[in-house]
C-alpha cells in the first residue's frame, strides 16, 4: 500500500500495490477466523496448482516425454483434459469446504435432533 498518487517514472517498473485502499471488512465473530480462512483457501489453491502440474507431468510421461520445465510450459491440454481438470478442481472445492454444506446452528438442526432423542426416550 501507499504507492498511489506517484507519477509514472522512466526505467524499471515499481512494484504493484498488494492491498486495496479502503477498509478491509471482516465477517466472522472473531476476525482472526476470516484471516485463517484466507490462509487455508490460499493453501487449497497451491494444492490445486501442484495437482495440475503433476497431471501435466504424468501426461507428458504417457507420451514418452521428459518432464522438463520447457516441456511443461509447452504442454497444451486438449479439451478433454481441460474438462477433467475442471471437474477435479470443483471436486477439490467440495471436499475442502464440505463442512460448510452441513446444517448450521441457527438452522434448526439441534432442535430436530433433540426431538428425535425425545421420541426414543
Amino acid at each position: 500500500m501507499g504507492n498511489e498518487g506517484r507519477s509514472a517514472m522512466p526505467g524499471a517498473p515499481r512494484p504493484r500495490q498488494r492491498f486495496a485502499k479502503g477498509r478491509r471488512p471482516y465477517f466472522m465473530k472473531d476476525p482472526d477466523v476470516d484471516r485463517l480462512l484466507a490462509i487455508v483457501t490460499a493453501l487449497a489453491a497451491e494444492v490445486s496448482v501442484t495437482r495440475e502440474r503433476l497431471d501435466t507431468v504424468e501426461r507428458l510421461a504417457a507420451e514418452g516425454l521428459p518432464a522438463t520445465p520447457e516441456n511443461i510450459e509447452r504442454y497444451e491440454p486438449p479439451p478433454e483434459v481441460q474438462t477433467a481438470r475442471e471437474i477435479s478442481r470443483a471436486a477439490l472445492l467440495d471436499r475442502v469446504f464440505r463442512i460448510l454444506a452441513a446444517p448450521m446452528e441457527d438452522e434448526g438442526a439441534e432442535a430436530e435432533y433433540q426431538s428425535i432423542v425425545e421420541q426414543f426416550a
Partner: protein
Amino acid sequence: MQNNSIHAMFPGATHDEQAMQSFIKNLRVHVLREFQESGRTVLEAEIDPALRKANGGRAPTRRQLREALAQKPRQRWWSSMLRITQEMLYDTVGPSIERQLPELIERARKLRGRTGSLTLDPSVAMPRYLTAVDIHSKPGSYQQELAEDDVFPGAEFDRTYRLYSMGMYGPNLDASGWSLIAWIKQTYPDFRPRRILDMGCTVGHSTLPYAEAFGDDVEVHAIDVAAPCLRYAHARAVAMGRSVHFSQQNAERTNFADGSFDLVVSHLLMHETSHAALRNIIKETERLLAPGGVMAHSDGVRPKDLFSRYYAEWMAHFNNEPFLGTIQDEDFEAICAGAGFDPERVVLAQAPLRRREDGPEAAPLSSFLVVGARKPPRLNA
C-alpha cells in the same frame, strides 16, 4: 506456455499461473453459488417477511437486509469467502501481469496509432469517487501507473474480468455491448447512428461491438479517466482490427461540441460515479446528442429483486463500490427530466444479457437496467 490468447495484446500465463487462475475461477463459481443460494433462501423465507412485519408492511431497507443477513452464520462464512475470492483474483493475476509488464508496454507501443487513435490528457483529474477507495478492491484501482506508458491495470483487468465473469460475457468479454445494441435496435428500429460515444469504456470490452454493429461508416469514440486503461484499450482495439478513437476525459464534462453524437452509451459506468456525477453525466449526454439522437446508459440496477438489492448493498459495503447501493434507489425518470430530456421520450427497461445482438439470452436471471431517451428530430427537416 499455454497459449489461450484471444488477441495480440492479451497477457499470457505460465503453466502454474494458468492453473492458479483456473482454480480462482472454480472458487468463484463455488463461492458465488453458495452465497446466492443461502442468501436468497433465508431472505425470502425468513428475513423479508420478518422485516416487513416490523416495518408495518413496508419493504425492508438495504441496510436492514445487510444487517439481518450478517447475523446468519452461513452468510457470514460465504461473505468472508466472497471477499477472499476477490482478493485472490488480483493476487493471482497481478503478479503474472507484473512479470510481463515491460513486454506488454512494448507491445502496446508497437500497436499504437495503427487504426483509430489515442489522446491522453494528463490535466484530467481523477474524480474523488474513483480515488476514495480502490474500486472492486483492485489494488491500485484502474488508474495506478507502475511505469512510463503503463498498461498494468488494463492488462490485469482483461484477465481478471475473464475469470470474474465465469464465461458469461463471451470470449471477447463484450456481452454488455451486444446486449445494449440488441436493446437499441429493438427499441428504435429506424435508428442508424453515424457518430457514437461510449462513456467510461475502461479497456473497451463493450465499445468494440459498436464498431461493427451499425455498419462500416460509423465513427466510434470512447472516453475514460484512467490513462493506463486507455493505452491498453487502444492497443487491444488495434490488435482486434477495430477502429476506435479513445480519449482521456471525464464523462461529466467532455470537450466534444454540442450535438456531436447520434448515440451516447455507457456500460456499468453509472454505479462507479456518485449522486452528483450521475446527474452531470446525464446532462452532458443531453448536450452531446444531435437532434434525433439516442441515449442508452446501462447498469446493474435491479431495485425490485430482493436478492439483487442485498447483493448490491453487499458490494457497496464490502467490495469497494461505494455508490452501488444508493444507485438502486435513484429516480432515473426525474434525473433525465432534470437533464432536459422530454419525460415522454424517456425509457427505463431491463435488457437481458446476450453474447451477440441476435443471440439468445445468456443467463435467464441476468439483465441490465437501461436508462434510455431519444431527442426529438430536427424541426423543418
